[in-house]
């Protein structure tokens, strides 16, 4: 059918007339046919005209003209009308009111689609007439059946292309929005339907899907326009009218060339629905795993919907699968209820939806990770979910970034107590250990916390408290994560045993080979500067100690704390301390805990010695009844005997003990000397605890107090009123110490304070008639006594800082000397010089940090000055 100029030359006038006449009547006939509104009778005339024109080789012209007229008509008739339907929507959205009547979109959409499809259908029929005409011409001149098919497919595809290009060029802005809202509505309806009766509805749903599957096994693209006539209303069960309707709409849209737009629209609305669902299910509840139910939901609603839709659209299951070979990812998953073999499209959809669900859930959880970790042990299901999500999406770095920023914002602030930070740190370690066993991300997250904690003064103290508190069965602080640290110690102990086994050098070659084979590279996110996984074993205690820097500091702090605890014990019950110490020994090594062990041993020895001394009183001096009232016997005295060299520095205060007690003490010491010759006892009179009873005329009260308090109150036996100066002199303590301590009795209402003649010299008087509130409080006083004692912060053991300070004062001379010689020095230089020269007793063994602390102490005492990082002597 090429245009052939030679052919034109060969035509004579008659032929030209014939052509012109046929062409004119062909045009008329075409118009008549197309505008005939369902009247296809004109089509019959078409055959001879087409034959004539084709006879002259004008076949392509005929086709072009016909298509052109179709296009014009379609454009003027159908398209304009079609878009007009949606004008209301655009008006509404301009005004900002999107609330139509419920089924507005559905009605309009299906109605308009039906209309335009009808139009298109009619035009296609006209096209078929032309095809028929061309075909019959071809048949008349040749026997080649091949060409017939040619006409039909080429013309229809041309027509299809034309339709979609017209529509796509004229599509108004708001049309995708309409589609989305339509699908959203429908899907919500569907999901509600599933939610109401998932059992019955689901079953029927699936059942009809099965039936649907059978007739749909025909290749796509051959007769798309026939689909609705084929299936429409034939196979759908009543319950499935919804999917049916949607399918029809999708089908129509596809028919008009909106395939990708439609797909976008329902994809986005499915994803939106899924997102809502995830948010709905996950919410703020971290105590239940949700991933499973989300997956179920994906199976139950969107996948079923998509399956029905794909089947409806003629995407055949089963068949595709064998050719595509895409069995791998989900071939093993048998979970397609009611669908024997998933089609490739469905598998893709499932992967897509699941990925989206994972990502949504992950984002949700990461956003709330801080809260999740706050209630960690309870929220472990959420952590588990998050782990699975991250395994799937691999967006760990997102977690790290977001978590670090929320840490900085919420935890690492001046308002948070060190204890809280430590607890959160421990929970973080535990939670992230679940998510990522390699510890790469934990490392990144832990860094800011560690840095921050290093800047806090009470970190060590808090850690030691966490380590030791809650030990023993009688811990009162339930839910305190101190327990968990102790547990961690325990677990660590178990691990240690197995680790020892692992480190065994006698590994045979086979085992070594297995280990080597098990090697895996670090995750890509790992920071290469941080060493390999082997060194990155996640060990909570190790990480906690890592905050402090060295275990020595921790051990030292523990020793001070232990000393404090042991000295305030009035019984010799140290079971829990022994247990804690054993655990600590496993972790920190026997050597560093040696002193603590001696301290505990002292307590055990004291108990024995105490018993021995008591036993040495062969016969208690005949207990006269009146004697027992006044005199104290050795039965009333217990003692803790310590090896002072191994205890932290103990603060000694002089104290004049009442003679009765003094005698008792020396008697006790004498007996000790007898038993343990040539050892002697040196009393630390200000230490220990005294349990005493105050006897008033009508009432009595019991207290457990320190010896100092006891001595103070005993002074009031002989004399009901003391001035502070006299009292201090009589007890043998400085006056300010007395004033501090005596507050305890004042707060108990036992003593009353009044200002005497001299403003410094207060008068304390015994309160003879105890006021009511104390009477009622009698029961409580016993326990309060100890509390009050602690509150007063009266420490029997020098704190670590004080100790350090004492040790460092030795070097003060050196430092001052150095600075006099050199003028100014940096911290490093002072440190190195001290290391170099102070090798003799006591050799310099402090850390840079400790030196810095000491130097800043000197600065605050105005002995030194610091300028631009240089230390200078203050003149």
């Amino acid at each position, binding site marked *: 059918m090429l245009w052939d100029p030679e052919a034109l030359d060969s035509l004579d006038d008659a032929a030209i007339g014939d052509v012109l006449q046929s062409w004119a009547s062909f045009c008329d006939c075409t118009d008549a046919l197309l505008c005939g509104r369902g009247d296809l009778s004109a089509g019959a005339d078409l055959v001879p005209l087409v034959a004539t024109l084709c006879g002259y080789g004008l076949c392509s012209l005929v086709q072009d003209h016909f298509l052109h007229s179709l296009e014009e008509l379609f454009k003027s008739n159908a398209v304009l009308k079609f878009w007009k339907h949606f004008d209301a929507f655009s008006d509404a959205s301009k005004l900002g009111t999107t609330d139509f009547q419920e089924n507005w979109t559905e009605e309009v959409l299906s109605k308009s689609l039906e209309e335009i499809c009808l139009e298109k259908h009619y035009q296609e029929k006209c096209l078929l007439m032309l095809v028929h005409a061309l075909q019959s011409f071809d048949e008349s001149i040749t026997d080649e059946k091949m060409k017939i098919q040619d006409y039909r497919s080429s013309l229809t595809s041309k027509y299809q292309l034309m339709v979609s290009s017209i529509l796509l060029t004229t599509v108004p802005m708001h049309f995708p929005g309409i589609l989305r809202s339509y699908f959203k509505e429908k899907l919500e309806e569907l999901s509600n339907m599933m939610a109401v009766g998932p059992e019955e509805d689901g079953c029927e749903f699936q059942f009809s899907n099965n039936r649907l599957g059978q007739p749909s096994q025909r290749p796509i693209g051959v007769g798309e326009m026939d689909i609705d006539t084929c299936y429409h209303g034939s196979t759908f069960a009543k319950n499935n009218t919804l999917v049916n309707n949607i399918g029809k709409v999708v089908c129509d849209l596809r028919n008009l060339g909106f395939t990708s737009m439609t797909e976008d629209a329902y994809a986005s609305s499915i994803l939106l629905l899924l997102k809502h669902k995830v948010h709905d299910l996950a919410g703020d509840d971290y105590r239940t795993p949700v991933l499973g139910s989300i997956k179920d939901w994906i199976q139950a609603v969107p996948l079923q919907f998509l399956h029905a839709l794909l089947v409806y659209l003629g995407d055949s299951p089963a068949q595709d699968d064998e050719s595509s070979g895409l069995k791998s990812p989900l071939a093993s998953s048998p979970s397609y209820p009611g669908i024997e073999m998933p089609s490739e499209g469905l598998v893709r959809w499932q992967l897509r939806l699941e990925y989206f669900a994972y990502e949504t859930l992950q984002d949700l959880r990461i956003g709330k990770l801080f809260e999740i970790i706050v209630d960690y042990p309870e929220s472990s299901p959420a952590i588990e979910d998050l782990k699975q999500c991250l395994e799937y999406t691999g967006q760990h770095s997102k977690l790290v970034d977001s978590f670090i920023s929320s840490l900085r914002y919420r935890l690492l602030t001046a308002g948070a107590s060190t204890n809280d930070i430590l607890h959160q740190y421990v929970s973080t370690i535990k939670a992230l250990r679940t998510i990522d066993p390699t510890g790469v991300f934990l490392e990144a997250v832990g860094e800011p916390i560690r840095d921050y904690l290093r800047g806090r003064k009470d970190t060590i103290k808090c850690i030691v408290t966490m380590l030791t508190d809650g030990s023993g069965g009688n811990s009162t602080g339930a839910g305190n994560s101190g327990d968990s640290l102790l547990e961690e110690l325990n677990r660590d102990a178990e691990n240690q045993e197995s680790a020892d086994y692992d480190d065994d050098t006698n590994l045979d070659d086979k085992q070594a080979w297995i280990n080597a084979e098990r090697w895996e590279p670090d995750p890509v996110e790992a920071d290469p500067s941080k060493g390999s996984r082997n060194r990155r074993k996640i060990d909570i205690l190790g990480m906690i100690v890592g905050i402090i820097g060295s275990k020595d500091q921790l051990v030292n702090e523990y020793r001070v704390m232990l000393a404090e605890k042991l*000295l305030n*014990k*009035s019984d010799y019950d140290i079971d829990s301390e022994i247990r804690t110490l054993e655990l600590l020994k496993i972790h920190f090594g026997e050597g560093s805990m*040696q002193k603590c*062990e*001696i301290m505990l*041993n002292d307590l055990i*020895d004291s108990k024995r010695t105490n018993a021995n001394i008591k036993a040495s009183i062969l016969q208690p001096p005949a207990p006269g009844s009146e004697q027992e009232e006044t005199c*104290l016997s050795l039965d*009333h*005295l*217990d*003692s*803790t*005997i*310590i*090896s*002072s*060299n*191994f*205890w932290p520095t*103990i603060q000694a205060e002089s104290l004049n003990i009442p003679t009765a*007690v003094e005698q*008792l*003490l020396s008697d*006790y*010491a004498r007996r*000790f000397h007898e038993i*343990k010759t*040539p*050892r*002697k*006892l*040196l*009393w*630390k*009179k200000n*230490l*220990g*605890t*005294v*349990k*005493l*009873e*105050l*006897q*008033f005329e009508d009432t009595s009260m*019991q207290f457990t107090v320190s*010896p100092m308090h*006891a001595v103070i*109150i*005993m002074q*009031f*036996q002989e004399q*009901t009123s003391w001035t502070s100066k006299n009292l201090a002199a009589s007890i043998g303590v400085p006056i300010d110490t007395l004033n501090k301590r005596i507050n305890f009795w004042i707060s108990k209402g036992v003593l009353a304070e009044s200002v005497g003649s001299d403003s410094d010299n207060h008068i304390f008087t*015994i309160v*003879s008639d105890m006021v009511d509130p104390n009477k009622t409080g009698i029961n409580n006083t016993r326990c309060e006594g100890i509390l009050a004692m602690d509150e007063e912060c009266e420490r*029997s053991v020098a704190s670590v800082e004080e100790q350090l300070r004492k040790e460092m004062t030795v070097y003060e001379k050196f430092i001052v000397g150095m600075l006099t010689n050199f003028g100014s020095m940096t911290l490093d230089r002072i440190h190195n010089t001290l290391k170099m020269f102070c090798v003799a007793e006591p050799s310099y063994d402090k850390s840079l940090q400790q030196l810095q602390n000491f130097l800043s102490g000197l600065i605050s005492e105005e002995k030194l000055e610091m300028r631009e990082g240089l230390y200078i002597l203050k003149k």
Partner: protein
Amino acid sequence: MKVKILKWHAVASWTWDAQDETCGICRMAFDGCCPDCKFPGDDCPLIWGACNHAFHLHCILKWVNSQTPQPHCPMCRREWQFKA
């Protein structure tokens, strides 16, 4: 008012009543223990020689056993004899 002591739990430290601070052999404190011992006190006692010099028992025994035929006190070189 009267004060009745129900229990007095006192704290004391023990000391070997040696005149010196540290053992002349190991240079460790008398109230501590010799380098071989873990616990001070009963486990690592002191011993006095006839010359009145005190040492950790373990320290002086090692010394005495290494000195043949006649051990001397490491401090005063007098013949070593345990104080009765």
